[in-house]
């Protein structure tokens, strides 16, 4: 058994789990955060993607014990109260989900992609970067649209914040 201590969505949590417990099961079963899904369970589909210390990783391919001491953000931690995160809002706006099963992983991966490409994104880059996320409804077209739109919104948000900061200074 391992003592697992994490900061999940800003909240300090800890629990005792079997050493073989995967991070995704710790999140879902010990913490009740069932937004993170288990899809393929073979590290391919990306439905289980969460952020561990700021990096989008597959939580079905990491032991909870390995993650202990880390900061984790799940789909439940993205929205700011009632305000959806720009990527969530873009998925809704552009119909980036059909059955919705892959959506948490898609959104967590997309946030990471946008963060890694502050210079902006094009369609080919988004498609290549979403290599590790599978949508069985094959709704990729609108997912890509949503990521591109969110990337623009977030860039605008940043430049607005920067100009506000400049004015304030």
């Amino acid at each position, binding site marked *: 058994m391992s003592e697992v201590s994490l900061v999940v969505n800003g909240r300090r949590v800890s629990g005792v789990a*079997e050493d*073989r417990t995967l991070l995704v099961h710790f999140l879902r079963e010990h913490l009740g955060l069932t937004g993170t899904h288990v899809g393929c369970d073979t590290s391919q589909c990306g439905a289980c993607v969460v952020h561990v210390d700021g990096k989008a990783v597959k939580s079905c*391919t990491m032991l909870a*014990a*390995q993650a202990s001491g880390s900061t984790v953000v799940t789909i439940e931690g993205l929205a700011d109260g009632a305000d959806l995160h720009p990527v969530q809002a873009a998925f809704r706006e552009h119909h980036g989900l059909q059955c919705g099963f892959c959506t948490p992983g898609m959104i967590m991966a997309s946030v990471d992609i946008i963060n890694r490409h502050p210079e902006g994104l094009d369609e080919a880059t988004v498609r290549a970067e979403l290599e590790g996320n599978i949508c069985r409804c094959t709704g990729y077209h609108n997912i890509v649209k949503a990521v591109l739109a969110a990337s623009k919104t977030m860039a605008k948000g940043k430049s607005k914040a920067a100009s506000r900061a400049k004015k304030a200074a």
Partner: protein
Amino acid sequence: MYSVNYHRASSLADAAKLAKTGDAKFLSGGMTLIPAMKTRLAAPSDLVDLGHIAELKGVKVSGKSVVIAAGTTHYEVANDEKLKKVCPAITELAGMIGDPAVRYRGTIGGSIANNDPAADYPSALLALDAVVVTNKRQIAADKFFKGLFETALKDGEIVTAVAFTAPAKAAYQKFRNPASRYAIAGVFVAKGKEGVRVAVTGAGDDGVFRAKQLEAALTKKFDASALDGVTVSSDNLMSDIHASAEYRANLVLVMARRAVTAANARS
């Protein structure tokens, strides 16, 4: 997954000591080992996590000499600016492994210690005439890879780094399996001081290997045209539901041509 005991090593010495517990295995990024444990293809009694050992992190470049610590992730290799300048072939290769989430966790040491016959890094190490550094000794890449999932590593031996001299020209090209994205054939071509080396992954019946006939042709002239009329034998190549040995033989040649062209295209 069967039950397992997890140990987090704080240093190399600690890891070596912990490895003596039961039937222990080292855990680096876990991108192969954990899926293998989930499907019960691997069932170690103990896991020794190398992921938190500071001395296993980082890339050092001085002049043409490169040392990549074993715990460096594919993401870190792919994005290392100094390494990109002296050996873009290896940073590009790292950026082609798996998918972004896998690249954040998977490590160079884990990849070569596992020696999957379709893994990318083994071909780079072989073509770059790299040295594998362990906590016990240094092993030339030519002697390190011993066939399917087999290496020269002894029980309890830990890969600590990979060292090589950046070649004048190099590139890696792979043809991916459309489903798994692993290489059906991947070819790393390097033109260094000692001549041209060509290493092939994904295609060999016994894991990564050097394509000596391609090396000979490219040593005469380092250009894709030097491979015109050259054939790759399908003997000792893998045949499976994805591709026959003959198909792979042709792919090796095509990937080699593309790699040479890509290597020459860098200014």
